């Protein structure tokens, strides 16, 4: 089958560098180290016809030693085969190599990983925030960032406030009153 051939050639090409191969419900993933990323990516694109980078996503394993995990989803249009590459990226040690010259779509995916998690990419042509604004001081999708946000202020550009997680303005308070009286009404926030 084309899938197995591709994976076999990948394994023979890299051998030791693919530290782990997992299969789950027909999906194959390989774990590699960040230093080998560009080599593996080049081989995947040119030799193994994985010409479509579906997604780059990142996971924050807050508390574990390599804190972040970067996951690349590749797809081969010609053979219809999916492949997943996982890397573990520690927080302090230098940036990860960019693959935006191999798959141009990686440009924006890597900007998103930088914006949301703070993972930097070396060699990226335009590494700046994409969802939040330049100068926003936090990385929102890290596990130590609260969902309701933290206050920040850049005058004339943007501001953020902490969102109230419970209560107002339109709440129904528990009671035994009839529905006309129980209907949620605007409730002024408790100060």
């Amino acid at each position, binding site marked *: 089958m084309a899938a197995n051939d591709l994976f076999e050639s990948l394994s023979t090409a890299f051998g030791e560098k693919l530290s782990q191969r997992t299969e789950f419900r027909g999906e194959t993933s390989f774990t590699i180290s960040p230093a080998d990323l560009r080599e593996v990516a080049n081989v995947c694109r040119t030799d193994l016809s994985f010409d479509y980078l579906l997604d780059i996503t990142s996971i924050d394993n807050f508390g574990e030693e390599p804190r972040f995990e970067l996951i690349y989803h590749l797809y081969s249009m010609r053979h219809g085969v999916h492949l997943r590459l996982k890397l573990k990226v520690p927080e302090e040690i230098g940036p990860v190599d960019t693959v935006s010259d191999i798959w141009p779509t990686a440009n924006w995916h890597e900007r998103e990983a930088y914006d949301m998690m703070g993972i930097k990419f070396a060699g990226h042509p335009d590494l700046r925030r994409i969802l939040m604004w330049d100068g926003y001081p936090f990385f929102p999708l890290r596990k130590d960032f609260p969902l*309701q946000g933290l206050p920040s202020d850049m005058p004339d550009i*943007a501001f*953020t*406030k902490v*969102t*109230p997680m419970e209560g107002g303005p*339109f709440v129904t308070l528990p009671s035994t009153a009839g529905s006309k009286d129980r209907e949620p009404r605007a409730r002024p926030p408790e100060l």
Partner: protein
Amino acid sequence: MPETRSTAYDSKIEGNVIFTRFDAALNWVRKNSLWPMPMGLACCAIELMAAAASRFDIARFGAEVMRFSPRQCDVMIVAGTVTYKMALAVKRIYEQMPEPKWVIAMGACASTGGMYRSYATLQGVDQLIPVDVYISGCPPRPEALLAGLMKLQEKISGERSFRDQTPQLAEKLEDALA
């Protein structure tokens, strides 16, 4: 509400002459030609477009003139999620609208932040600009938007722009006569 009385002065020569209060006429004119500034940010904009299309004609209310220039608009319809990134741009557009101006917060996101209780969404556009009418719904049906527009028209017809200036005008008149 100010009343109008119609009096035919001399229909054959002069035509009909109507006596009314200045405020009534002013309010009638303003409410029946509310030109919206469509601040269509997200999915509610689709329902705004639907309200402007032929089935739920917003032109019946004189509001089909959706010029995207704030300088020519009366009412800003904030239709969609206001993120913090967009918030100051919305405020800038609101400040560029000339008086008199009103704001309709259309949908849950514009009213209170909607389902997005998070770090990135402004919890209601009324944290930034004064809102006259809130329309609930996710998204509100076009009929709901039209009902909100009618409620705004009711609000406008109760305004007292001229009568509130009466003390100052009376003062100026006295100064002029004295």
